[in-house]
């Protein structure tokens, strides 16, 4: 960092000595960005990122954006270490699990100072929603979300049509079970060839399990005020019982699901082995490319009796500017562009992401109405009204893994759900020193 800076400073001096030999020799500022996307790659999101960078650099010839791709699961911890050692990049993508750590460590610059202060009220209102609020601590905006993940029910439209079931009829948890049973198919030998509803319970790559929407929908909290686990609430126990009953009582989910990772579940779905899965909005486009655009849909969780739809867990990646960046101004310009109207459009149209600005869907007009793209509206409605974000005031890393382990213990070791959750809570508290 320092060396680069020194180099560009030296270059600047040289330019100055030449007496300003024209704009072609103007000092080029390098802005480093860490993300897990490789802009030379060819996946839709990578292409979108490359396009955004190209457009930005064309409009700002004095700024050079250098992407340094990282392994996604180590990137945020590494960023925090690099913040300590003074070698962090100027722009950083932070995963929700570590967002609290990143903000509380002071590693993220205030975006208000960089560009939000110049925004009109409309511009701010365009971003309103839980993701905006999450990254806004005491009035300071620390980051903006780029990738929004809404984790709800992914389903096979064709199989629903075949069975004559309208997804809109899944209004309660009981109806979810009922539909799942109808969609579970056995072959002539009596073996299940397709399951009604599947989620994975491995601790590796754990998505937030069904019991979270269940218990939050019933008005319970997953964590208590002081950041301790509150897993074993009556609603939590019911939720865990429901999700393990899907295997042991209703037979709509295979027993092997206890060892399945998120990717295993998507592969089962792609193999016609599941009609509904606990699925993330960010995966819809991939599954559509494997199965066909018209076959994959996303729906909200069923209602809880108290709420029309139980809240889905939301996660994703927020982008911020490093607080010690020497080129924070330029980094801010890039972040503003990447997540602004132009950038957002590219993320949606090219990258298949769900929009971050309320106005983007309107600007895109027909795009969201094209067959297969209906899920974009599901995500917008869902994230605005029926979402749950893990708290960031305290660190909660590992909660999904520990909840999944509790489910494994119930299914494999026959543990009592309440006791399994109590043990899980104790382990969570211990691992966070609470």
């Amino acid at each position, binding site marked *: 960092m320092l060396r680069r800076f020194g180099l560009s400073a030296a270059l600047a001096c040289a330019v100055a000595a030449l007496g300003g030999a024209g704009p072609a020799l103007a000092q080029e500022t390098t802005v480093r960005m860490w993300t897990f996307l490789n802009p030379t790659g*060819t*996946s839709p*999101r990578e292409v979108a990122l490359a396009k955004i960078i190209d457009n930005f650099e064309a409009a700002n010839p004095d700024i050079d954006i250098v992407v*340094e791709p990282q392994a996604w699961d180590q990137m945020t911890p590494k960023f925090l270490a690099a913040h300590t050692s003074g070698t962090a990049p100027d722009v950083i993508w932070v995963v929700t699990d570590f967002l609290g750590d990143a903000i509380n460590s002071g590693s993220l610059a205030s975006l208000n100072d960089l560009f939000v202060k110049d925004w009109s009220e409309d511009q701010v209102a365009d971003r309103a929603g839980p993701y905006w609020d999450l990254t806004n601590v005491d009035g300071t905006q620390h980051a903006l979300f780029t990738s929004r993940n809404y984790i709800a029910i992914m389903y096979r439209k064709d199989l629903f049509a075949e069975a004559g079931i309208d997804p809109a009829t899944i209004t309660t948890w009981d109806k979810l079970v009922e539909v799942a049973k109808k969609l579970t198919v056995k072959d002539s030998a009596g073996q299940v060839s397709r399951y009604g509803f599947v989620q994975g319970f491995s601790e590796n790559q754990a998505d937030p399990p069904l019991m979270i929407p269940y218990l939050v929908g019933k008005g319970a909290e997953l964590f208590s005020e002081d950041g301790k686990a509150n897993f074993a609430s009556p609603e939590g126990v019911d939720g865990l019982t429901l999700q393990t009953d899907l295997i042991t009582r209703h037979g709509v989910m295979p027993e092997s699901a206890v060892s399945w990772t998120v990717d295993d579940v998507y592969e089962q779905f792609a193999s016609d082995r599941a009609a509904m899965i606990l699925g993330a909005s960010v995966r819809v486009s991939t599954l559509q490319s494997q199965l066909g655009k018209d076959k994959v849909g996303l729906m909200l969780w069923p209602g809880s009796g108290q709420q029309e739809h139980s809240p889905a867990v939301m996660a994703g*990646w927020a982008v911020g500017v490093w607080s010690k960046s020497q080129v924070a101004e330029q980094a801010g310009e890039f972040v503003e562009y990447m997540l602004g109207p132009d950038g957002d459009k590219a993320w949606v149209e090219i990258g298949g992401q769900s929009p971050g600005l309320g106005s983007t869907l309107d600007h895109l007009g027909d795009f969201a109405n094209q067959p297969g793209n209906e899920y974009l509206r599901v995500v917008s409605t869902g994230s605005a009204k029926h979402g749950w974000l893990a708290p960031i005031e305290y660190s909660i890393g590992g909660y999904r893994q520990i909840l999944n382990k509790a489910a494994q213990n119930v299914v494999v070791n026959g543990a009592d759900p309440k006791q399994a959750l109590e043990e899980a809570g104790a382990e969570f508290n211990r691992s966070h020193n609470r």
Partner: protein
Amino acid sequence: MEDLTPMTATKTARPTTVPFVPIADRRRMLPSVWGLMIAAAFAVLAILNLLPLVWGILTSFKGAQDLFRFPPTLFDFTPTLENYQRVIDSGFLGNMKMSLFYSATTVMATLALALPAAYAFDRFNFPLRGPLFLLVVASIPLSLGAAALLIPNYLYFTRLGLTNAWFTLPLIYTAHQLPMAIWIMKGTIEGIPRELDEAAVADGASHFEVLRYVILPLSKPAFGAAGVLTFVGSWNEFVAGSVMVDSPALRPIQPAIYNFIGFFGREWGPLTASATLAILPILIAFALLGRLIVSGLTKGSVKG
């Protein structure tokens, strides 16, 4: 026995006359049951080893629609090169070039440092020789378990200004591979008769000249062995490769492969395509050096 290789046959000059035939026969009787069992076990092993490889290579030629057909089929799909195209478009050949550079530099540096050290440990008597050699052996866990200290290591290397440079990974890899290379080479040098050194010294050679003109030519096989193990080790290293360098131009091959097991899912097509490309250099190295490994370690590790 009929397969006895020319190499071993000439080396050992076995007695070849009639009286030994029954012995050879008796030898074949006993191992034949044993050999059959091992052959059966090997058949199982071959399936276990080759099936995933074949499946992986086939997958690399499958399009998105053919990836997860159920039940799975081995050959009934439309082969495509799109995965390889994607892998290459993403700059994979550049990563491969970098990794070749890292691995080659590591091999050379490891050998250059290991040979004198092994020579000293075997031929010299200096203070703390025994404990120092034990330290070399005891540092094997440090290299194999280095990932456990990833973040402190990252801070340490950053503070020294050693991260994100062309020499970062060769430096780390060389240190990781060095203990084992010293061990292998020391074994080889043990096998070189000391009379040769002494004769050279009598002719007025310095101990460096002994190393250069006596030991070095005779340890070539160990170079092959330690070299291939070092090559595979640094070629397949992931953790340091993904954490210690940031610049895309310095990125080695393994993080590039793992990029296809991304946040948005594992993409089996490009993943298997890149993994297939990644084993080619290793296979070539083995095909070229396979015999060298055997003869190299031969002298390397037998005599304690």
